[in-house]
């Protein structure tokens, strides 16, 4: 699959990080769409107008921060209005003169690079010095991300530090150097108290092919590291990309990957439509989501794309670890399911047994793995509440005994003792009822969880049986493309 995509890559791109060194401040080439990328611009435009927002993740170490932007996220953060909102939001906090706001809003250091990569699915990594003395004055997280994507940071002034300046960077996947489609350098704009500072500090962008984020054939997310050198030292900072970021980026590129597949294999069109549907509002029901992902997994598997198949399967198995396929499903899918299946209890316990175990508070929860903490919480909660209730009631009875034997020669007086006894009684009863409620709620929760577990198992057992498998039928919906999946 990587070879196929490699054929589609335009040859005009500069593979910047293969030879780490000075990076360009303007794109040296323009990426043009290959055969399989035809229609990508239209796809991302439709995504921006009708679908959910793209995936953008910000992660950092002590010196550097990295923002990962999928093409859809690049489009979502591109409007000047977001940066303008961030600048206006920070105007008061940083005492900014009005005349600096509009220039900030139209500051587009990456417009040439974005334009050069627009026709091709690439993931941009924005690498900049970490915001150490940051002001959270932006108008929302998206505005901050939009500003960060343009190399604009809001915060207190700090002297130029060469060790915090980004020199160059490279990406390694499972230890091996990854080719960079395009790389660029631009000055960092620091918005500080009273104005804007450009002290020569820069930031980088690396444009990567989506396959950099592709899972292994076993469905495991690759170990991605970004090595960042400052302007002084020879040793780079190594920023591991969180696994959830890797998976999320890859997931967002899958609909387009299915479309690419459909270009050469028309029978994959259903999978493309199904995955496209998952990216649009409103979110489809759970069963439909699962059906779409399995359909796409089967399609990818049938067209020699085990990485995409295993990634989708892993995602489905994360929520349905007990999923099994019938014999009618291709063996590769069944075998991969067995390989990827996370440890899980795939049997159900009769509800009367759960109720019996719940006689010990939390016993119902303790039955399932991964719920021990909840079980312990139920047990401790019930116990603590009950003991507190017992203690308060014991104090109440002691006080009431003192009230009953009060002979008129001590303090507090009888009515004071009675009021205290009643107060303790109410507290004790309250705690006792709380203990009962926690106990009862834990029992109900245990029963409900087990019932739901049994239902979930039944729902995903022997999927693909010819007697039960349904149709995947795209339908036109005013809110987007609908997908009806019936098992």
């Amino acid at each position: 699959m990587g070879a196929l995509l490699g054929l589609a890559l335009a040859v005009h791109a500069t593979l910047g990080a293969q030879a780490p060194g000075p990076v360009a401040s303007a794109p040296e080439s323009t990426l043009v769409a290959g055969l399989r990328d035809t229609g990508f611009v239209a796809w991302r435009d439709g995504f921006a107008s009708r679908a959910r927002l793209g995936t953008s993740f910000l992660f950092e170490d002590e010196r550097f921060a990295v923002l990962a932007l999928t093409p859809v996220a690049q489009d979502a953060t591109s409007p000047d209005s977001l940066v303008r909102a961030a600048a206006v939001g920070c105007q008061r906090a940083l005492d900014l003169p009005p005349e600096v706001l509009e220039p900030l809003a139209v500051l587009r250091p990456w417009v040439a690079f974005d334009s050069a990569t627009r026709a091709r699915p690439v993931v941009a990594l924005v690498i900049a010095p970490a915001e150490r003395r940051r002001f959270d004055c932006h108008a929302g997280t998206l505005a901050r991300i939009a500003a960060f994507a343009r190399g604009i940071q809001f915060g207190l002034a700090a002297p130029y530090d060469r060790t915090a300046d980004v020199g160059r960077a490279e990406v390694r996947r499972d230890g091996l150097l990854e080719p960079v489609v395009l790389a660029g350098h631009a000055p960092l704009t620091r918005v500080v108290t009273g104005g804007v500072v450009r002290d020569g500090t820069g930031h980088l962008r690396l444009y990567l092919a989506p396959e950099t984020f592709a899972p292994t054939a076993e469905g495991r997310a690759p170990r991605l590291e970004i090595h960042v050198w400052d302007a002084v030292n020879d040793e780079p900072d190594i920023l591991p990309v969180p696994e959830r970021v890797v998976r999320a980026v890859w997931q967002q590129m899958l609909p387009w990957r299915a479309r690419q597949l459909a270009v050469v294999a028309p029978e994959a069109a259903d999978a493309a439509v199904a995955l496209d549907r998952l990216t649009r509002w409103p979110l489809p029901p759970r069963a439909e989501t699962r059906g779409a992902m399995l359909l796409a997994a089967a399609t990818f598997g049938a067209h020699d794309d085990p990485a995409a198949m295993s990634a989708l399967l892993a995602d489905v198995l994360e929520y349905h670890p007990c999923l099994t396929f019938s014999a009618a499903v291709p063996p590769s899918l069944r075998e991969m399911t067995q390989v990827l299946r996370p440890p899980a209890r795939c049997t159900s316990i009769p509800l009367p047994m759960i109720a019996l175990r719940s006689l010990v508070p939390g016993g119902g929860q303790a039955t399932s793995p991964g719920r021990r903490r909840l079980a312990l919480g139920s047990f401790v909660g019930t116990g603590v509440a009950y003991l507190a209730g017992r203690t308060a009631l014991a104090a109440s009875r002691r006080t009431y005994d003192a009230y009953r034997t009060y002979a008129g020669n001590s303090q507090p007086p009888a009515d004071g003792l009675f009021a205290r006894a009643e107060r303790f009684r109410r507290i004790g009863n309250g705690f006792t009822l709380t203990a009962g409620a926690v106990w009862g709620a834990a029992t109900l929760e245990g029963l409900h969880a087990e019932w739901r577990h049994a239902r979930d198992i039944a729902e995903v057992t022997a999927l693909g049986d010819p007697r039960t498998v349904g149709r995947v039928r795209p339908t036109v919906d005013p809110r987007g493309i609908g997908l009806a999946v019936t098992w």
Partner: protein
Amino acid sequence: MRGRFRGGFIAALLLAAACDLQAPYARTNPFDPGGTIRMRIVGPDSSHALGERLRFAIEAEPALPPGPLYVNWQSDNPALLVSAANGEFVVLGASARFTELGITATFGEVPVRRTILLGQSADSLRLACGTIAVPAACDATPMTVGATLDVRPRLVDAFGNVVRSPSDALARAVTAVRTAGVVQVLPDGAAAGVIRLRATAAGTSWVVVRVDRGTDSVRVVVSP
């Protein structure tokens, strides 16, 4: 089946929790102003002698707490009836005229009241004629028909004290003339503190007088 089991289990759970709750307490302490205990003073309804000691007690439903209780006993007029000890009073002032007097037992701020009759009753009676200085037997000087004779009583209560205000005691007196028609008991004598007889026919008769628990008699002679 499962639904029934679950319902029964929850019901049992709630029942167990409910059984373990403490019901509201009863306010039964006599010193509690908001209490619901019913109390009354029990003891004698009246006093009959000076120096008499009256003992009262508290009867309560439910029962009072065990052990000594710090109760303040008082009468409305300590000059007449003084509290001597826990529920015990001593009569200091009383007469043959019975009057109402309140006594109070106070539990902290909770009072319990009762009213008794305070007075003197005659325990013994001695009748005599003549003067106070020189008493004489009533039959020593025969009366003539139509004449009157004042018989002076001497009333003493159970503690040997002379009954004060004897006229009030004589208002309760019962007299009897053994030989009918010889003398007549006049009603106006009681106001003067004497038993006044009028001779109506010649003869001899015993006149018997009873005041409270005291009884005595005198013999009168009427000559034609």
